[in-house]
């Protein structure tokens, strides 16, 4: 591997995403090339700075999960609980994508087992 080939791969070497074979070849080149080792130090610094800067951007706003849940599970409309904590039955109605499916769950020793789910009409 020559300097041009090594430098093309250095950003990914610095980020740790090269394949084992490529990584070994770059490491062998670096062992024999001081100029590329100096370049690697600059690459590592740049990776660290980009990770630090992007990582401090805000994350997904509060409430995003609830919006996702409303579109997947639906907005709960009502729930009927029968039995005890150890053995019982739950019936739940929700609004999901214009439908109102009914879901039934069996509670058994703290575990929830899905029983049935209706489509809830168009």
């Amino acid at each position, binding site marked *: 591997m020559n300097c041009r080939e090594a430098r093309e791969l250095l950003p990914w070497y610095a980020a740790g995403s090269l394949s084992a074979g490529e990584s070994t070849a770059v490491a062998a080149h670096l062992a024999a090339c001081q100029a590329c080792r100096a370049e690697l130090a600059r690459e590592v610094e740049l990776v660290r700075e980009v990770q630090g800067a*992007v990582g401090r951007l805000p994350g997904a706003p509060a409430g995003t999960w609830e919006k996702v849940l409303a579109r997947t599970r639906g907005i709960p409309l009502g729930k009927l609980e029968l039995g005890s904590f150890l053995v019982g039955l739950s019936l739940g109605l929700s609004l999901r994508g214009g439908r109102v499916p009914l879901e039934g769950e069996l509670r058994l020793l703290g575990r929830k087992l899905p029983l049935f789910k209706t489509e809830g009409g168009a």
Partner: protein
Amino acid sequence: MADDRELLSRVAAHDEAAFRRLYERYADRVFRYALTLLRNRHLAEEVVQETMVAVWQGAGSFKGGSRVSTWIFGIARNQAHALLRREERGAREAEEPLVLPDPAEGVHRRDRVLAALEGLPPEQREVVVLAFYEGLSYREIGRLLGVPEGTVKSRMHFAKRRLREALA
């Protein structure tokens, strides 16, 4: 701790607890990725929502030919571009700077790095974020972007040159 593939297979069986864990693992990362692409917080949140709904609906179609992260970022990228097309057809939401000025803080190094990233052409910025923040290989980025590996390396080369000039 369950790995991504295990979580995704449980999501395919509509396991909500697994879905929540996958959301917690990816929501912030997808939001930041979308933010660097779209530079608009409302649109970035929309990308997170659309991506996670697509993950819930499409988990069963994941064939395992890539890492789960590459699959999820591929979905996020498609959603971001769909939003961009929508915005271009209608009234486009204003882009916001990635760095919100805070007079009390002064200019920090990280703000300079973000400003330098913002100054990159979008196709170069995306490669830098995916390679350095998400740790994707150039092959994975090439597949995700639908461009040859040489193009990915070339975008990285020019991006680094610009970043170094901006940060010198």
